[in-house]
Every structure is written in structure tokens, then in C-alpha cells.
């Protein structure tokens, strides 16, 4: 069955082609059904393959599809790699992807252009699967670029709004910067190891000493790519803007799957990162700073999707911290758990927005608990999961990161602990403001309030279930239960970092974070529900640091002043002075000269045979003269 793994990306590709070609001729239910079915079929195949891989002693399998690039010494096959890492990603992508596809049928039912939406969504799944299935960096890169393209297309899905188009462009350009790093990294891999296939690269790398300069450079360049795709400082600003896309897109691409591609890539390259402690340290530091930085911004956002977006950036930061300290399996564990609860939160937010007729500002919500019971309960589960309350998914994965980081560096642990306090604060602020208190929207919105159709609530319920029980796949060591996840992945990790805490410290970490979260829940309840404190509706009333936070540290403005403006200036200078002044003149000038020569030469063609024969004689004399020279 493993040899049939090519079926997994094939189904979404076929879905894309069918929906894309029939386009407007399909009714919404049909295009949605085709799209969901194709992903579901991929999911079924993935489950079957997972069962085979799951057996003890199963080895990674490479499936050669065809010879792709064959130029000189460069030989890059188009091949897939099925191992324990890719199979987990497959399950997440097709599983969560399927749920989000189903959800989209309900969410997009009033949309005219639904076929375009579903075809893009299927295309995205195809590229994402390519990304995780590839057996070498080039196939991964093809998928990597493909998901970037789909992300661009879907952020700008409502292309009639300039603002959305700008968001799409921003995402694309930011990602391009990262891609450049990734590409350079691949080039360096090829020149260092003479191959881009994982197997050959990693086997060759194992012969290199720790801290080798080439490997350090490679890992840093690859990390630049990861920064772009996974929205880390300084390339994170596109992700909040990317919320311009339809909400299912935010859930699928900008929370559950694509943004974790950077993490997947680092885990895939863990051999290299293990050999480059310097790079790993940078990964951890960038992750840590991003986590706390994004969390502070999240405190002052009022757009329900923006809060979740900054929370995603922050959570991705967590995962990078885990990668940086060498806890690769923990990072993947958090990727999976995050896919569950963040997809849930986004879909819940989508359900809220759907009910509120497109309103996204939490200042105009409130009291939705009664009207949207299912959305409310599932959103609460998601919030508890991300805040890290026992026994929800986030508790286990986050706690594991915290304890691993504590073992690595207590200082980083403190910062991360602070971040998880912030996470709990902004998430519960969001939760209380949305579902409790009194309704603050318009009268029209109030009468329109309704629970979403079952195609939307069913995915919510399933994801809520997963967010509730998913965490038990990775029980902390103190419970003396096998850590299923870590054991499953052990063959993927090259050198496992020694990051175990004494039982007492681990219990203290767990207890401490749990107590903190409970306290925060009570405090935020008092603040936002009992005292009913509202965020300022007028931006001018904000003072000091709050204002800075509300403006996201003015990062966009700083980027604009430091990078965009100089580039714009350079571009307009190049256009006016170099393009118009120099290049155009050379080009047009050579055209004029050519025309001149051409019109002069025409006079040779007189039409009289006498001249022609004379010309030939001259030609013969010239030929004789030329051959005489030799």
C-alpha cells in the first residue's frame, strides 16, 4: 500500500482540475462536495499507510515517481518519502483539511465564486502534501512555492478590495524573502554534499564535526526560509494581514498547515540542526522573542481574527523554541495539537462572524453564548486548550515545551511562562468579550443572529473532541505512561537532546502554569464580565504602552520607512534616470541606427541586372582576396 502513496496528492490535484475546469457550471454544494471528497480519499489512504508504518520495524520507503531534472551531473528524481514524520503530517493535513473543506461548504454557500475557492483549496492541499511527501529538498521546495502561491491566491480571494490585494501581495513578498534564504540553503546543501536527497545529505552530514561552518550556514539559510513561511520575527507581519482571506483559509493555511511548514522543514533537517548548535541557539532565541512579542500585541487587538493571528505567530514561536533546544518531537507534538485547537478557534471565529453578518470586531459582539450554543462550547474548549488547562490538548504539548525549556535554560523558561500567561489573558479576553456580557452590535445584527448550519458545526465538534483528548498521545513522564508521540518519532530524530527534569521540578512546572492560568481566568472574568470593562472604541484614548501595543509596535510603519520607502525611491530613480535616460535611449538608438542602415542599404537593390552582376563580381573579388589571406 505504501507504494500507492502517490494517490494521496493525486486526489486533490484531480479535484483542483475538475472543479477548476467546470468552474461556474458547478453548484456550490457540488464543487464543495468534490473538493471534500478528494481530500477525504487522501485521508483514507493516509490512514491506511499510517497503519502500515505504525508496525514495529517498518522502514522509511522511497517512491520514485519519475526522473525530474537530469542535467549534466545534476540528477533530481521526483520521489516521495514515506516515514514516520511525513505520515503524521499527512494525517494532519488531510484530516484537518477535510474538516475545513466540509466547513467551507456551509461558510461559502452565499459566495458566487465558490468553485474558484474550492479549486484553490484543493490545489493548496496538493502542494502541501507535495511539501511533506518529497524525498528531497527540491520537491519540498516545489510544494513550498506552491503553497505560497495558493496562500496568495486565497488571501486575495476577494480581489475587488485593494486592501485584500495588498495583504496578499505582502504575504507573497515576505515569503519570497524567506524563500530566497531557503533556496540559497538548498544551493549550499548541493555544493556541500553533492546531493539534495534527504537520505544522502543526512548520511553525509553525519560524518561532519559538530559546529561545522558549512552546516551552520546551511541551517541558518534554511531557517530564513522557515522565518518567512512560519511568520517569525522579522518576517511575521504578513500573517496578521493574511486574515483578509476567507476564514476557512485562515484556519487551514494560516493556522493549521502551511505556517507549520517551516517547523516541519527544521524537524526534517534535524540532523543538520543537531550538528549546528549555534544555529539552534538562534532558532530558539528568534522563537522566544517572537512568542512574547506577538503575545503582547495580541493583548490589544480588537479584531477576532487578528487576535488569533497574533496568537498563531506566538504559538509558532513556541514551536521554534522547542526546535532550538533540540526537542524536535515536542515541537511536532505541539504542531499537531496546535492544528487541532487553532483550526477549531478559527472555525469558531468564522462561525461567529457568519452569525454577525461579517462583523469581526469584538467590541461590537458580546452575549453570544445563548444564540450560538455549539460555537460557544467548542470555542471554549479551544480557548482552554490554547491556554493550557488540563486535560485539553494544549496543556500537554505546552507543558512539555515548558519543561524541556526549563531543563535547557531557566531564563528562557521564565520568558516562556510569561508568554503563556499573556496567551491566557488575551484568549480569555477574547472569549469573555465575545460570548458574555450584553450584545453590543446593531439591532439588525441582533435579529440575524443564528447558529451555523451543521456542515459548519460538525467540524467544530470533531475538532473540539480532538482538542480535548488529543493531548493524551503525549503524557508527561511523571505519569509513567509511555509518551506515544515521542516513541513513534524516535527513529526520525538523529540525536535526542537530554532534557529531562527531576520529577519534582516537572510537577512544579505543571502545577505552576495550571494555577497561573486558573488565576488569569478568574481575573479576566472579573475584569471583562463583572466590571464589564470594554476596550476603548476611540483609538485616541489609548495612552503610552497600550497605544504602542495597539499599533503593533509600529512595526509596519518602521518597515515602511526603513525598507519600502528606500526601495521605492531606488525604483523610481532607476526608472526615471536609468531606464528612461540610459537603457531606453540605447535600445531606441540601436533601433534608429538599424532603420537607417536598412533604408540606406535598400538603394543597393536597384532592380537593374547590370548592378547585380557588378555586385557579384565585387563579391567574387572579395572572396578571392579573403581566401588569399589564409
Amino acid at each position, binding site marked *: 500500500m505504501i507504494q500507492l502513496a502517490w494517490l494521496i496528492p493525486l486526489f486533490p490535484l484531480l479535484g483542483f482540475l475538475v472543479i477548476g475546469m467546470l468552474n461556474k457550471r458547478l453548484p456550490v454544494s457540488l464543487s464543495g462536495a468534490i473538493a471534500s471528497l478528494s481530500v477525504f480519499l487522501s485521508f483514507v489512504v493516509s490512514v491506511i499507510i499510517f497503519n502500515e508504518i505504525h508496525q514495529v520495524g517498518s522502514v522509511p520507503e522511497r517512491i520514485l515517481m519519475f526522473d525530474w531534472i537530469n542535467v549534466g551531473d545534476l540528477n533530481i528524481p521526483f520521489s516521495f518519502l514515506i516515514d514516520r514524520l511525513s505520515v503524521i503530517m499527512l494525517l494532519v493535513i488531510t484530516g484537518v483539511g477535510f474538516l475545513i473543506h466540509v466547513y467551507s461548504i456551509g461558510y461559502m454557500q452565499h459566495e458566487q465564486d465558490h468553485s474558484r475557492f474550492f479549486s484553490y483549496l484543493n490545489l493548496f492541499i496538493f502542494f502541501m502534501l507535495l511539501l511533506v511527501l518529497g524525498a528531497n529538498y527540491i520537491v519540498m521546495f516545489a510544494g513550498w512555492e506552491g503553497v505560497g502561491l495558493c496562500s496568495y491566491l486565497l488571501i486575495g480571494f476577494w480581489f475587488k478590495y485593494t486592501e485584500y490585494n495588498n495583504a496578499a501581495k505582502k504575504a507573497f513578498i515576505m515569503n519570497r524573502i524567506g524563500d530566497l534564504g531557503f533556496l540559497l540553503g538548498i544551493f549550499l546543501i548541493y555544493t556541500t554534499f553533492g546531493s539534495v536527497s534527504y537520505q544522502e545529505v543526512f548520511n553525509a552530514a553525519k560524518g561532519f564535526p559538530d559546529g561545522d561552518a558549512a552546516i551552520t550556514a546551511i541551517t541558518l539559510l534554511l531557517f530564513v526560509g522557515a522565518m518567512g513561511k512560519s511568520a517569525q520575527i522579522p518576517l511575521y507581519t504578513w500573517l496578521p494581514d493574511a486574515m483578509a482571506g476567507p476564514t476557512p483559509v485562515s484556519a487551514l493555511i494560516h493556522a493549521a498547515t502551511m505556517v507549520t511548514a517551516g517547523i516541519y522543514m527544521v524537524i526534517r533537517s534535524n540532523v543538520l540542526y543537531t550538528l549546528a548548535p549555534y544555529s539552534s541557539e538562534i532558532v530558539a532565541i528568534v522563537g522566544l522573542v517572537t512568542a512574547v512579542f506577538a503575545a503582547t500585541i495580541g493583548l490589544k487587538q480588537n479584531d477576532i481574527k487578528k487576535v488569533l493571528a497574533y496568537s498563531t505567530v506566538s504559538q509558532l514561536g513556541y514551536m521554534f523554541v522547542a526546535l532550538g533546544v533540540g526537542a524536535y518531537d515536542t515541537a511536532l507534538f505541539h504542531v499537531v495539537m496546535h492544528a487541532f485547537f487553532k483550526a477549531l478557534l478559527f472555525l469558531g471565529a468564522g462561525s461567529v462572524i457568519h452569525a454577525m453578518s461579517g462583523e469581526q470586531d469584538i467590541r461590537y459582539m458580546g452575549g453570544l453564548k445563548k444564540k450560538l450554543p455549539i460555537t460557544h462550547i467548542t470555542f471554549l474548549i479551544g480557548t482552554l486548550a490554547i491556554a493550557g488547562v488540563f486535560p485539553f490538548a494544549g496543556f500537554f504539548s505546552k507543558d512539555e515545551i515548558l519543561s524541556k525549556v526549563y531543563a535547557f535554560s531557566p531564563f528562557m523558561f521564565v520568558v516562556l511562562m510569561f508568554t503563556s500567561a499573556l496567551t491566557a489573558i488575551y484568549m480569555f479576553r477574547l472569549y469573555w468579550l465575545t460570548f458574555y456580557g450584553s450584545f453590543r452590535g446593531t439591532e439588525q445584527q441582533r435579529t440575524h443572529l443564528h447558529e451555523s448550519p451543521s456542515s459548519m458545526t460538525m467540524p467544530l465538534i470533531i475538532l473540539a473532541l480532538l482538542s480535548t483528548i488529543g493531548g493524551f498521545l503525549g503524557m508527561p513522564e511523571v505519569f509513567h505512561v509511555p509518551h506515544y508521540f515521542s516513541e513513534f518519532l524516535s527513529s526520525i530524530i538523529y540525536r535526542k537532546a537530554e532534557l529531562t527534569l527531576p520529577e519534582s521540578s516537572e510537577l512544579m512546572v505543571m502545577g505552576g502554569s495550571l494555577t497561573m492560568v486558573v488565576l488569569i481566568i478568574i481575573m479576566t472574568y472579573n475584569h471583562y464580565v463583572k466590571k464589564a470593562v470594554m476596550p476603548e472604541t476611540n483609538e485616541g484614548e489609548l495612552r503610552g504602552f497600550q497605544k504602542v501595543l495597539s499599533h503593533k509596535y509600529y512595526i509596519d510603519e518602521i518597515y515602511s520607512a526603513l525598507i519600502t520607502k528606500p526601495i521605492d525611491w531606488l525604483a523610481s530613480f532607476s526608472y526615471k534616470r536609468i531606464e528612461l535616460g540610459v537603457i531606453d535611449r540605447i535600445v531606441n538608438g540601436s*533601433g534608429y541606427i*538599424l*532603420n537607417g*542602415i*536598412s*533604408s540606406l*542599404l*535598400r538603394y*543597393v*537593390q536597384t*532592380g537593374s*541586372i547590370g*548592378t*547585380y*552582376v557588378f*555586385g*557579384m563580381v*565585387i*563579391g*567574387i573579388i*572579395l*572572396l*578571392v582576396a*579573403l*581566401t588569399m589571406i*589564409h
Partner: protein
Amino acid sequence: MNALIVIACLGIAAMMSEVLGFKKLLLPLVAIGLISVVGLFVMDWNTSIRYYHDMLYFDNYAIAFSAMVTVLTALWLIMSKEYFISTTSKAEHAALILFCLTGAIVMISYSDLSMLFIGIEILSISLYVLAASNKHDLRSNEAGLKYFLMGAFATGFLLFGITLIYGASGSFNLQEIANYLSKNSEHLPMFVYAGVLLMLVGLLFKVSAAPFHFWAPDVYEGSPTLVTAFMSTIVKTAAFAAFYRLFATCFSDLSGWWGETLAIVAALTMLVGNVLAVMQQNFKRMLAYSSIAHAGYMLMAIVAMNHISAGAIFLYTSAYSIASLGAFACLHALGANDNEKIINLRGFIAKQPFNAGLLCLAMLSLAGIPPLAGFFAKYYLFYGVIQSGYLWLVLVAVLSSLIGVYYYFRVIYTMFLPREEEDGVLPKISGGHKILLTIVAILSLLMGIFPGILQGIL
């Protein structure tokens, strides 16, 4: 060999058709004849038989080129249906075309200089008549006469050259001349060089290389469009096949002596052709100059003269001829002489998008834009020339290709302009033209996607 006999008999049959009264059957007969001839060539593949005391030698090179000119003639016939219906002397036209083809195959497969001469004459004399075949058009008459006078002049050079070579080697046979030249390479008499030079001049005239190209624009423009199409594709292919065969078999040992000179001629030819094509407002005249320019590129294969150049020139002549046939089909559809201005193509794409698209493909292939055949034809040609060490020639070729892109694209660009009051009529693409254009487009794409097939068989 059987194929050659079949074609000659077909020509005689065509002549008799008027007298014997089966004119109506003429076209189907010729079509079936040409198709069976291609079949006969395919059967001869890999046989390499010498005929008539080594007068003709059908090796794979000869068979490939012969089959190609036959196929081109068949394609040409698709658009020329009306030429054999509306004109009064269609039987003669058909016969002359078939004799031309006979001459072409003789000059492709010759193994003896006398056969080369006979082939060239069979071809040329038929062509002189065809060029003047539009009796009531003064320019057609002028073209025929000019072609005849200039051709006679050039044939003189060719004959002088052959005599001198014979004088030194004592043979007309290619193989024996080659043996003589390689045996006596240390002390060749001066007049051998003179002989090679004179033959070179004669052949350069036939392929319309600068500075022996003056006849070409006038003759191409004056002749009926269909004859021009025939001249600039089938005749050109055959002339280059003969040219390459002579220099590859006999004179390759002397390539150090004539190589540099021929390289300069090639460079001059492509520059003159391309530069002069830029200013032409008349589509037909533009194609005439473009045909001169392409002769310059094809000469590069003879300059390179290495293991890939035979395949390269085969691919190039095929790609060029096929794309040219497409361009000429549109030109022919434009109609009478005064309507042949490029500017009359304005609005073509809006009114007839399919036909215009096909013309676009033909133009792109002529300009050498991937993935069409013209690009890979140039690629192999340039690659071979670089391997033989003429880097500067490739640079000139690339530069002049850029000029070529300018005027080919002007045709495409004109098609996109809106129509205006003073514009003449758009091409009236008949069924035959459409079929031809479609075949041209398909072949150009296929040869572009799988260039190795044609290039690799030689």
C-alpha cells in the same frame, strides 16, 4: 531510386494529362504519387545503394532530405490547389513542379559532379519558367528573365569550378576527388583552389548568400506567391543539401582554407537579410529577405562541419521550410499584389483568431522562440558552430536573430492593431490554407518538443 523514377513519370503523366484529357484527375494523382514516394523513401532507409556506376548514392542523408522535400512539396500542394484550377496551363505547372522535385532529388543524392550539374539545371530551368508563369504580370516576366540571366551567370562559375577540379583529379566522382585531395594535400596545384572557389560562388548564388543574393528579392517578389513559396522552401532545402554534401564529402579536408571565408559570408548574409527585412512594408518582400537571412544561418552548418552539423542543417531546413510554408499560406491568402502590405494584417486576430494564432506560431518559429522548432534548430546549429570554434560567428548570429525578432514580431503586433478605413482585405483563408496552417503549427510544436528526433537521425 524508385521514388525518383516515380516522380519523373508523374511529371510526364502530368504533361500528358492535357492531351489525354484526364486533367480532373491530375491533383489526386499527384497527391497519391507524392505520398507513395515518401513511402518508397522510408522503405529505402538504411540501404545506402549506389546507382548507375556511382552516379547517384542514396545514403541516409540523401533519403532524409529527399523525403523531406517530397513532404514539403505535398504540403505546398495543399495550399496550391487553386493554382491548378484557376490558371489556364495547369498541366504544365504541375509537370514543372514535379520536374523541379526531380531535379531537387537528383541534386540531393548525387555522387558525381555531373549529376550535381544536371540536377541543378533540371531544377533551375523549370523554375525560370515557373517564375514567369504569370504571363500577364509584367513583374512575373521580369522575375523569370532576371532569374534566368543571373542563374546562367552563376551556372557558368559552377561549371568552371567543376572543370578545374576535374583537371586536377581526373574524376567527377565525389569519392575519388576526396581521395585525390587527401592524398595530395601537401602539394595541391593552385587551380584546385580556384576550382573550389568557383564552385563555392556558384553554390552561394543558388542559396542566395550575400553578396550573391541580389536576384533573390526581385525574383521572390515578382514570381507568383506560390512559386515564391516553393523556391524559398523546397528549392532552398535541396540547394543546401547539395551544398553540404559537396563540402562534407569532397572539401572537408580543405576546411581550414575556406572555413573562415565561408564564416564571413554567412555572417554577412544573415546581417544583410535581417537588416534589409526590417524596413520592408511588403509582406512578400520581407519574407524574401528573411529567407536570405535564414540562408546565412544554414551556411553556419557548413562552416561548422562536424559530427552534429548534418543533423543540425536537416533540422534547420525542415523547421524553416515548414514555418515558411505557413507564412506563405497567409501571404497567398492575402491575395493580389497590391494587397500584400503587412499593414493589411491589422485586426487579423480580432476577426479570425484561430488563423491568426496559427500565423503567430509560424512567425514565432521563424524568429526562433522556444518551444517551437525554430528555436531548437538554431540551438543545435549554434552549438555545432561553437564546438568548431567559431564563437564570433555565433555572436553575430545571435545579434542578427534579435533583428529578426523585430520584424517577425512586427507582423504579430500588426495583427493585434485595430482595423482602419484604408486597410485592404484580410487574408481569405480557404480550407486548404487552414489545413496547411494547422499542420504547420502542429509540426512546429512537435519538432520543438522533440527536436532530437530529426536532428538525431543524421
